[in-house]
Every structure is written in structure tokens, then in C-alpha cells.
């Protein structure tokens, strides 16, 4: 069972990968180093805010732009538990699933959550609860193949088993 509880940190639409982790820091793959610069071109205080508020609540097309997996890695290493968005850009969506960063698309929840609200996310059933206001939002759970990848802890573990199984 994957259930997360925490406080909301909000940002807007079209947050792109150049903002999430600027190219000037792409000379490393170290998650901790990447997390040091996560979102800094958008919000210099992100690093501190995320210590208190580690459920990201964002608008449309989150993670658009480059294919850099450094983006979800930087977010995950910053301590973010889970991201709720109106929508994700497709490569970011894939990358998040593949590295095991929980994400959910729940458009109506995003508008009704204020920064700082306490949130509970039931990932398996696709339920987001705004504890501060009592509102509950539902979305479709992931399709079976994706659930399997997530259940195995990401694509790499999934691959290990597939290779072992002679596929």
C-alpha cells in the first residue's frame, strides 16, 4: 500500500525541465548534488520549503521540455514524496514512473488545494484527500502494466525479472 501524508507546495503551469534542473548543473548525475539546485530558477527558496511541504501540487504540462531524467531525480532527492498535477508532459511522466517517483494526474484537486494544506494520497486507489478542507478527489488508477512496473520498484527491477524469465 502506498499512502503519503504531507503538506502541499504549489506551483503553476508549464514548469519545464530547464527550470526544474538547469542545464548548467547537468555535468553530474549525483542525486544529492542535483537536488541542491532543484527549481532554483523558479524559486530560490524551494530547498527550504520542501523540508516542510513535500507534496508538490502543480498545474498543466509539468516537466515539459527535455528528456533529462535528472529532473524527476532532483525532485525525488529533494525529499518530495509525490506530485499531483493537472497534467504531466509525457517524457517526465515516463521518467517518474521508471525511477519510482509517485505521480498522479488529478486536475480538480489541484485547483482546490491551497499551499500548506495537509494532503493524504492513496496511490493504489487513486484517491487524494485534502485533510485541511475535508475534500476528496478521485482519479483512475494506473493501467496494469504500469502498476506492475511501479510495484516492482521501477523499470530496472522489472527488467531484471524479465531478463531472468528468459524474455
Amino acid at each position, binding site marked *: 500500500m502506498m499512502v503519503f501524508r504531507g503538506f502541499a507546495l504549489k506551483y503553476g503551469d*508549464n514548469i*519545464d525541465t*530547464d*527550470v526544474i534542473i*538547469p*542545464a*548548467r548543473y*547537468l*555535468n*553530474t*548525475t549525483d542525486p544529492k548534488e542535483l537536488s541542491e539546485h532543484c527549481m532554483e*530558477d*523558479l524559486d530560490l527558496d524551494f530547498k527550504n520549503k520542501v523540508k516542510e511541504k513535500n507534496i508538490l501540487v502543480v498545474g*498543466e*504540462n509539468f516537466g*515539459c*521540455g*527535455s*528528456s*533529462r*531524467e*535528472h529532473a*524527476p*531525480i532532483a525532485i525525488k532527492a529533494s525529499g518530495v514524496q509525490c506530485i499531483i498535477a493537472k*497534467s504531466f*508532459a*509525457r*517524457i517526465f511522466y*515516463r*521518467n517518474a514512473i*521508471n*525511477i519510482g517517483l509517485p505521480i498522479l494526474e488529478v486536475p480538480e484537486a489541484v485547483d482546490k488545494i491551497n499551499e500548506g494544506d495537509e494532503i493524504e494520497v492513496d496511490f493504489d486507489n487513486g484517491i487524494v484527500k485534502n485533510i485541511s478542507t475535508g475534500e476528496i478527489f478521485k482519479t483512475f488508477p494506473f*493501467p496494469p*502494466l*504500469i502498476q506492475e*512496473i511501479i510495484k516492482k520498484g*521501477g*523499470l*530496472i527491477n*522489472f*527488467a*531484471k525479472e*524479465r*531478463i531472468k524469465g528468459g*524474455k
Partner: protein
Amino acid sequence: MGMTITEKILADHSEKKEVYPGELIFAKLDFILANDITGPLAIKEFEKIGAEKVFDSERIALIPDHSTPNKDIKSAMQSKMLRDFAKKHNIKYYYEVGRVGIEHALLPEEGLVLPGDCIIGADSHTCTYGALGAFSTGVGSTDFAYAMATGEIWFKVPESLKFVYYGKLPQWVTGKDLILQTIGYIGVDGARYKAMEFTGEVIRTLPMSDRLTICNMAIEAGAKNGIIEPDEITLEYVKGRAKRDYKFYKSDSDANYKEIYEWDVSKWEPVVAFPHLPSNVKPISSISKDIYIDQVYIGSCTNGRIEDLRIAAKILKGHKVHPDVRLIVTPATPRIYMEALKEGLIEIFLDAGASITPPSCGPCLGGHLGVLAEGERAVATTNRNFVGRMGHPKSEVYLANPAVAAASAILGRIAAPWEVEVKD
């Protein structure tokens, strides 16, 4: 029910008769690629999988194009990782500095990505190869690692959107303007998760270079892939260079499209995408004449091909770059560099006062070879103008075609090509 070209390629590569939008499939891959930024991360993941060898050492390209020639110690370490891995696994298409070009210009030129292929690349602009009639899409490093080990990857079959362009393309309006204007109409997420199929009489007469530019920027509308049905022009392009067999697919006449857009382009103009989104486009004639600039960049996987350099040279010939402007020109591959040299284009650029860089992504992603300072403004023939894309978070990037970029370099402000006298 008929299928689109995208659906047919995906069906054939997953050994199915038909596939449907939304269906999850595993598809076999004809070719995969990664670069010096995404590759090292993928190599680490590949090692975690525990596979002893790659699925096929002749279907993988590792291309150190982003921070090379290496800009600092850390990027040198990343390139070394790529190089060592390529040696260890006998990767046939590893390109060393001096022979390397920008991946999405290099691979079509080398005949390594071909019509009918199913391709993934750990780089978002992998969608470029759709111009050849391939299904090609950008993924992350973990996907690439998985593909290196297994030769396949999971996909959700995308819905298709059809874009039909008809009429007569006015002078100075290029593939770059078609795609920027399209993104302007549908927005940066207007094609999210979807296939963009480009067609119509205008596309049918476009040379491969413009087609590559158009498909290159499909990702800027959020698309999974951009694609153009192959035709005579495609055949002409791949004939002499193909390193493998290829296959032409076409959409059925009763294929299903989520949406069909039709535009008469006869009155379109060159456009400029203002900061900080590629969709923020304005026709050149509507732009005020006082947007002064500090730098002009002509290059990248979008517009760094020989055709682009020819257009820029045509405008720059006999002119000088404005005293307050730095013009940086990057031929996208060594072969393009050589052609530009032989055709006298490099001389024109140098005479005008431009700086020529080696083939590299450098300035396009604010990596090196021309990074912007705080408050600076650039006109670039690249594909992204996000905050901080080419340098300081408070710098600005205006996207344009090579003719607009060259004219702007001469006049020191955003300018239309017809404002400059062409000296033949």
C-alpha cells in the same frame, strides 16, 4: 477501421495486426541513442539490471554532443564514461570529438535512422526522425538502459492529430515557421501524448531539411512523435546513405484522427517565438523595431543543417554583424562544416564577423560556447526559449528561422529578412 502510419509502425514492431490508441504494448526497436548527458545516467542503470551485453551493438549510437569538446572536468568525466562503455560493449556507432555532430542532424545524415523504423532516444528531440517516416520518440535514461538490455520498450499507442498545410509558401517562410506557427495555434501541450502527422501539398514539396525541422519541434507541442509519410523526396534522401533496409508506411484513407487541422499558408509570414514559450509566436511584420539584441545563434538540431547555413549566408553576404551583437554559428555536423567551407559559407560568416563553433549542442542549452549573461537577449534558430535555456535565468531567447536570425544579427534588433539588401 484503417490505421495511421504511426499505428502501423507500432503494430508491426509489436507483432500485432492492429493496435489502438491507448493500448499498452512492448515494441521491438530498430535503433536507439543517447548522448553525453543522458548516457552516463543510463549506463549506471544498465549496470544495475545486470545484463551482460547490449541487445545489439550495431543498433545503438552513443553521441557525445552536448558538452563537447568537454567544457569542464565533470563533463569530461561523463564523456569518458560514455567512451569507456562504448569500447567495452563494442558499440559500433560511438562518435568521437572531431567526428561527432549534433545527434539529430548526424544520424539521418549517416543513414542510421530510416523510414519505417521504431526508434527511441534518450533525448527529447528524437522525434526529429519522424521526418523520414519513422516512429521515433524521446525517452529518459532508464528507458534507454532497459532498451539497451532488451531491444524493446513499453509504449502507450498515441492518438493521432493530422495537420494539413496547403497553398503556396511565401518567400522566407520555412519549415521552422510552419512548426512555430502550428505550436502557436495549438499551444505547448496541444499535442500532449499524441502523434502529430504533417501532410498536405506544402509538406510534399518541402526538402528533407525543412521536414526534419518540423518534426524536431513536435515535442514543443507536447507530442510523443511527429511524422511525415515518406515519398520521392524521402527516397532521394535515404537512397545513397541507408545502412539497413527500410520500409515505407502510409496512413490508410479511413484512419482515425482525434483532430484534423487544415491551414492555407499562402499568407503566413516568418514568425518569432517570444520568451518564454515556443508557442508565444508573433508574425515578423507585427514586431516592433526596437527589440535590441546581444547575441544571435544559428545552429542546433533544429536549424544547423547546410540548407540553414546557406540561407543565413545569403543574407549575411557583404554585410557586417552589428557592432553590439555576437553572432555564433554552429554547423551541426563535421560534414555540414566541410560543405559550408567548400561552398564559401564559412568565409562569408567570418567576413561578417561571426564566431564559428565546432559541431556541438553548446549554446542551445546554455551549456558552453556562448552562454547569455543576466539581462541579455538572443535570437536563436533553436527550439526552446524557456527561462534560463541559454544562460542566466534573467536572459531572453527569441526563436526564429535562419533568415530572421541573420537579418537580426546585421541590424542589431529583431528584423525581417527583407529589411536587408541581398547582395548576390
